[in-house]
C-alpha cells in the first residue's frame, strides 16, 4: 500500500465514526485531493480484492471501516460485540417524516402520524438522530427539527439525497386538488 493509504487506514481505524473527506485531507495537507481519492480507492480495493474481514464504506459524507456482514453472527455469538438495538416503529415513522419534511415542527409531525410524539422526539434527540435546526414562523414560534449526521450513519446513507425523492416513491402523493373525489 502507498504511504497515504496506510495513513488513511490508521486514521479510519482510530475512529468509531465516519471521517469526512475534508478531515482526511487534513491528515496530509501536501497531497492533492486527487491523490487522496486514489488512496481511498486503493484502500477499498485492497480490502475487497485481498480479502479482509473489514470493508471501507462511504457514509455521511465521509468514510468508515466496518466489519463485513458475513462475520456478524459469529462475533455476536462469541459475545465479542453486540449489535445496537433496533428503533421502534414509532421512532422510524417520526424519522421518516423528519427526513423528508425537514425543517418540521412537532405539531406537523403529529398531524401526519395522527398521534402525540413527545416521548419519541425526546429519545430521538437524545440519541443524536435529530436536532433543533431553527424556529418556525407560526404561533409560538415552534422548534423545527431536522436530521443529523448521526441519522445518516445509522442508516449508512452517504447523504440525504440518497433517499428516493418523494415523487419516486411508489405511492407518490397526489396534489390535494386531485385527491378530492368527484
Amino acid at each position, binding site marked *: 500500500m502507498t504511504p497515504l493509504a496506510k495513513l488513511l487506514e490508521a486514521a479510519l481505524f482510530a475512529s468509531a465514526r465516519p471521517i469526512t473527506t475534508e478531515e482526511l485531507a487534513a491528515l496530509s495537507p501536501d497531497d492533492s485531493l486527487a491523490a487522496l481519492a486514489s488512496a481511498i480507492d486503493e484502500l477499498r480495493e485492497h480490502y475487497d480484492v485481498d480479502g479482509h474481514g473489514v470493508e471501507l464504506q462511504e457514509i455521511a459524507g465521509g468514510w468508515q471501516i466496518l466489519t463485513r456482514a458475513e462475520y456478524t453472527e459469529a462475533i455476536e455469538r462469541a459475545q465479542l460485540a453486540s449489535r445496537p438495538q433496533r428503533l421502534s416503529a*414509532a421512532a422510524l415513522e417520526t424519522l421518516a417524516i423528519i427526513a423528508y419534511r425537514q425543517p418540521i415542527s412537532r405539531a406537523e409531525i403529529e398531524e401526519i402520524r395522527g398521534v402525540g410524539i413527545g416521548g419519541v422526539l425526546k429519545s430521538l434527540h437524545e440519541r443524536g438522530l435529530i436536532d433543533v435546526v431553527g424556529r418556525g414562523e407560526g404561533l*409560538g414560534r415552534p422548534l423545527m427539527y431536522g436530521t443529523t449526521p448521526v441519522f445518516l450513519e*445509522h442508516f449508512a446513507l452517504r447523504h440525504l439525497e440518497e433517499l428516493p425523492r418523494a415523487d419516486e416513491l411508489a405511492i407518490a402523493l397526489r396534489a390535494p386538488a386531485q385527491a378530492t373525489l368527484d
Partner: protein
Amino acid sequence: MDAVTPRGASGTGTFAVDLPQFSGPLDLLLTLIREEQVDIYDIPIARIAQQFVERIRTLELNEAAEYLEMAARLLRIKVQLLLPAGEQELWEDPRAELVRRLLEYQQMREVVDLLERRGEERRSHFARAYLPTQPVPPQAPLALSLVELLTAVDRVLRAVSRPDMHDVVPRALDVPGAIDAIRAVLALRARALLSDMITGAREPWQVLSMLLGLLELAKLGELRVQQLRPFSNVEITPTDRDAASEAA
C-alpha cells in the same frame, strides 16, 4: 393460528397483548382497508367505521385519545355521507381529507420500510469499538462572534415572548393601561366598535385587559356597551357626563 389474526381474537380481550400493535389510528385504518381489500379512494365508510370501533374495543385501545378521535371522525363522515348532497356542484366528498391523510401516511410508511432495510443492513456491520484514549482531545478553534451571541438572545426572546400553543402561560393583565387606551379613543370619537379597540391587541392577555377595562368603565358609567344582534360587533359609546348625572 387464530390468536395471531386480530379477527380471530375479537371477543377475547385477553388475547389483545398477542396482537400486532398499531403505531397510531392511521396505521390501524390502513390495515383495515388492506384487510377488507377496498379502494382507498372509495372507502366504504360505514363498514370501515364499524370495523375500526370494534377493533379499538378488542385491542383495548379505547384508552388512547387518538383512536377515539379517529373513531369520532369516521362516524361524522358516515353521517355526512347519509345527508342529502344538496347542490351537486358544491358538494365535496367528506372522505377527501381522510384519503389525503391516508395517502400521505402510506407514503411515509414506504420510507419507513426503506429505512428499516437500510438500518438492518447497517446493523450487520460493526464499527471499530476500541478507541485509544487521547490525552487531551485537541479541538478546532471556535468561530464565535458577539453579534452571533446577541442574535441568539434575540431568537430566544422572540420565542419566549409569545405563549406556546400547549402551555398556559400566566400573564399579568394590564387593565389600567386598557382603560387609558379606551378613554383616549373615546375622547376623539363619539362611537367606537370593539373590533377597533382590539385591533392592536396581538395576544389574549391584551384582549382580556381590554374587555375588563370596558366593563370597568361601563360600571363607572363612563360608557355604554351595546350589542345589537347576537355575534354582531359590540358598539361602545361614551355617555355624556351631564346626561349621566341627570339620569342618576
